[in-house]
């Protein structure tokens, strides 16, 4: 029905209001109209072809047949007489193909009639836009009102959230428990930055620690920022002077756990220094299985096999979005309850050792997968095992769960207990209370599979190695009850936030 050179297609389907002028010949009419106009010449009974004006001239002339009418046509205007059958065919084609009511009238005759129609259409369009604007304003007002009233979070939910936010922030990723570590100098410009993909998303991120191996020398500043990779938006940025650095873990903290939703984050680290300064070095560690989490930097460019891929030595901290990191305010560093949860790594729990002989022809003790320890009570005296913990700065509490992992167990009052002692204290001494730093009472496990939490809180923060003794016992001396598989799991240390680092945290902000 309508045909035009292909290069005109986009203009005929743009959002500008248009007049389509229908003529019986190819002459460009000399009309001054207040909106875009396109002249189509009737070339046979049912076909019109665009007559390009001089300024639209284009070297390619391939002609495209329209499947759909042009967009936002305010009127088809036939200033010179054109057969009614051709105009009717045009109208029918528009109705059939456009999928909506035909809203572009066909005007025949002089310019006056067209201008009247355009005026009416303009007024109508003005009214439509005014109505849309009014609706939009009222929608926004309703939305604001709903925030105040209708969708207000119930008080009990707010209270629940507040309580949840009292939970300690938690170590959610740590790759530092490997002897196979090295170090890398920090690039001294943003262009030579270290870019480290993070294995967690933004939601709940509260901060990270970098392990400073060498504090560098001279005058300069160390920068770190967290970037959302999908939007390239910087979520948080922090910096510190070289001379404020000290060897060990350097904490960077967001003011509160992030509520952002980006799945893919990147940590960027770089330095800026005066000439002659020596950049600090930070610890790196093998990425192992997932080389996609290796860092990129000029220093690592052109490297090496998959197994040799390195990532920064990192500790990532998280919590419920909105949770604040304790100890961020310097005056609050001595708050007694300012703790952070550090799950004991499975590799540490795996080193659990039996401390009393347990002869049996079936499994009674051992490390199970995913940080679980089986310790079955067997005899009149409690079964005992120990996990030796290395020195942990600011250790104030150790907790774990105990449960019976066999649903068939019908025995009640099986007991579990943990005792924290100085390193090297044996099980008998621990049971007698010698060298004990903290201990739980005996906790009776009455329902298989329902875990009980055992919490041993130390009176003071401790920085030396400790032993964690595990004990289980029967309800009473006698035959060994069947299925009494007592399992310890989810070992968590709590460290005192203000004592766990050599350095004050670097508070990161939005750039």
């Amino acid at each position, binding site marked *: 029905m309508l045909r035009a050179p292909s290069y005109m*297609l*986009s203009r005929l389907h743009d959002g500008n209001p248009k007049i389509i002028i229908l003529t019986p010949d190819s002459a460009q009419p000399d009309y001054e109209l207040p909106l875009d106009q396109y002249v189509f010449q009737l070339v046979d009974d049912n076909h019109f072809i665009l007559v390009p004006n001089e300024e639209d001239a284009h070297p390619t002339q391939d002609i495209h047949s329209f499947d759909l009418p042009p*967009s936002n046509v305010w009127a088809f205007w036939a200033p010179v007489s054109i057969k009614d059958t051709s105009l009717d065919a045009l109208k029918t084609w528009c109705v*059939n*193909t456009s999928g909506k009511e035909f809203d572009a009238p066909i005007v025949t005759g002089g310019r006056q009639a067209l201008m009247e129609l355009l005026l009416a259409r303009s007024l109508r369009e003005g009214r439509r836009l005014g109505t849309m604007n009014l609706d939009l304003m009222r929608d926004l007002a309703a939305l604001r009102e709903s925030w105040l009233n209708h969708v207000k979070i119930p008080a009990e939910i707010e209270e629940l959230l507040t309580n949840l936010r009292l939970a300690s922030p938690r170590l959610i990723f740590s790759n530092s428990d490997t002897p196979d570590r090295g170090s890398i100098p920090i690039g001294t410009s943003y262009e030579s930055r270290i870019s480290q993909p993070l*294995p967690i998303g933004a939601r709940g991120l509260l901060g990270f620690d970098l392990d400073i191996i060498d504090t560098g020398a001279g005058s300069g500043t160390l920068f770190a920022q967290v970037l959302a990779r999908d939007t390239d938006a910087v979520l948080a940025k922090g910096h510190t002077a070289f001379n404020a650095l000290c060897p060990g873990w350097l904490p960077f903290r967001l003011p509160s756990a992030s509520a952002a939703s980006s799945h893919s984050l990147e940590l960027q680290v770089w330095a800026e220094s005066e000439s002659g300064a020596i950049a600090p070095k930070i610890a790196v560690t093998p990425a192992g299985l997932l080389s996609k989490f290796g860092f990129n930097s000029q220093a690592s460019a052109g490297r090496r096999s998959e197994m040799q891929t390195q990532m920064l030595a990192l500790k990532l901290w998280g919590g419920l979005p909105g949770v604040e990191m304790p100890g961020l305010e310097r005056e609050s560093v001595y708050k007694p309850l300012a703790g952070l949860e550090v799950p004991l790594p499975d590799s540490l729990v795996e080193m659990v050792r039996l401390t009393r002989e347990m002869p049996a022809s079936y499994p009674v003790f051992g490390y199970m997968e995913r940080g679980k320890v089986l310790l079955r009570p067997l005899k009149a005296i409690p079964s005992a095992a120990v996990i030796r913990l290395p020195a942990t700065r600011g250790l104030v509490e150790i907790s774990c769960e105990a449960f019976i992992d066999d649903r068939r167990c019908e025995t009640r009052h099986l007991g579990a207990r943990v005792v924290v002692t100085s390193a090297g204290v044996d099980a008998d001494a621990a049971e007698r209370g010698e060298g004990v730093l903290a201990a739980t009472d005996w906790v009776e496990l009455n329902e298989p599979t329902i875990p009980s939490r055992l919490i041993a809180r130390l009176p003071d923060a401790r920085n030396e190695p400790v032993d964690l003794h595990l004990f289980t016992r029967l309800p009473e001396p006698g035959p060994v009850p069947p299925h009494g598989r007592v399992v310890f799991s989810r070992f968590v240390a709590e460290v005192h936030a203000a004592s766990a680092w050599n350095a004050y945290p670097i508070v990161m902000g939005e750039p």
Partner: protein
Amino acid sequence: MKRIAADTRVAVIIPAYGQPWLTCETLHTALNQIADFNYSIVIVNDGCPTTETHDVCQTFASGFPEQVFYLSRSNGGLSSARNCGIEFALAAFSQLEAVYFLDCDNRIGPHLLQRLVDALRTSGPEIGWAYPDVTKFGFAEAADTSGPYSPLEHLFRNFCEAGSMASRRMLDAGIRFDTEMRQGVEDWEFWLQGMEKGFRGVHVADTGFSYRRRGESMLVAAERDFASIKRYIRHRHPQLYNPRNVLRLEADARSRYAVYHPDTDCVSCFTVANDIEELTLQEFIMRLLQAGQRPAYGSCPGQLIAMSRSLFNAFQANGQLQGVLWTLECALSRSTFVECSVRHRVATRPSIFWTKGIDAQKDGSPDETILAIECTELVRHALSGATDIRGGVTQGGKQHQYLRFHIECSGAAPDQVDQSRDSLQILCHGISEVAGSARRELWDGVALDRYRAQTALPRHVYPELFNLPSVLPSGAEPGRRYAALILNSTETGKLNAAEDLAKALDFEGHIVHLFLFAPACPEIAARSSFSQIITMPLPHLLSGVRSDTYQAGLISRLEPGHMNEAIGALATYDRVVSVDGGLSHSLMGSLRRLKVETWALLGCDTGKVTSAEINACSAFEQAYSAIILPDIETAHLCRAFGIPDARLRIWSNVINSAEEFITADIS
């Protein structure tokens, strides 16, 4: 400002129907792209009856007349609307490089177009489309579509969202959305069209594509009738969804078997034995452990077989390898762990005999041992610290924990001490060591999306597509046809007939394999007639053969499990010939449905056909494309049994060389 349309490199095509206020959000994100090229947005109003949709589209088009183009059409469905946008973009934008499909309630990150275009620009000509990860919002969920593109995986799982970018070369190849598909999942069909034309996809990370997941979204509706949609898609793509093509893709991925050679400490990964990827044990274990963490379908075979290199080479040289591996695979589908002792004996010609497992203390130690286990089970065992895998827990869906067999085969015993007995320990030790050094526990503790992270197993593919447990990897040489001749026994006369037929088929250009439904294959004189000899011992060793009577004649059949395996064993051949009837008759109907040409040979050995043979064949005559007879007399007898003329052909009764091979219609 008109410059944008003239130099548009990418068109974002947004079909609009309903949800006008969500469309505002979609358009907002589409307009916010940061790119070093010009892009345009083409909104296609698919005849939405609500005026708000038109108002929103028109308002954006008016607000951005240089960049947003608006097409209004009568309702034709999502596919049709996208096609309309494609045609418009191709006609209007002469510099177009790609189109991006964005549904009117989804959102995109500001760098999406740039990153997808960069991926297409830097890829080879075979890359037809670039697809993103998906963050589903509303009912939130994330879908990790990362990893190398696997055409094999794409046949049974759609991991390329509609929110992907199709290159100009795909569109120029005539690929469009199927307008008949109005129930959803049309995007999968679109990419499959690309795959059929030789294109492949490429994954692009960090695009910020967000898919709005609503309770009554189209996808949810599609899930309700997903089975029929998948049937439709498979029906539309018979070239993709046939066993031979799937096998070809599997052969390209080399993802069927990982054969560990304890004597060389290497692992051969392959589907067909003439295309092997050799890895060191450490490389293989690394790949195996990675397969459990990140999506890379097909990068690591899911079935591990421990077999010395010398035995592997001997089986390969004797044309027995495929049969041995297939038997182990079938046993592994029933059992967590399969152990097969091997004893060699001196013989001038290749032979192989399968029996049930021997008692080493009573019968003496075997020369070597073959072990088979699924890789994930091996990893689980290796990392659990348990010592004896034979006494472990039976894997879900399997009947046995431990199956034992024994092979007596031709060839000299290995010079060195048998190591394969310890191969499991070597593997477990290696896995444990690599898992430690590669810090598996560290990554295990990270919450990654692992739903596509798996080793490749036939059961991911073939049951879903063909209702078969697996298919035997007959071969994937381009342009070659494969034929299987089936024998139930190895009597000399029958073997001679099979060899004669093999020569004739070879003359026609077939690669010919011999199948023996028997636990043994004696020394075959002219083995060169068959490139592979495949014994099918399990039905006999596991009591899987039954008998039925048909018109007073006794007809053997396989139990359902063995039957499916037998069909799978033959499903990728172009032609299957029953040389001596028996068990093979009952397989032919299923094979014919899989578009395999099926022949029966009557009177193969003596030239005389008994009534019992014809009776048995007549019970299955509909399953055959052709029944080959020795003479006209037999043809008369066949007709008397009700076998139609159209299936009957005469084979000259003396075939001494390929040149003399002829077939002729009885008429």
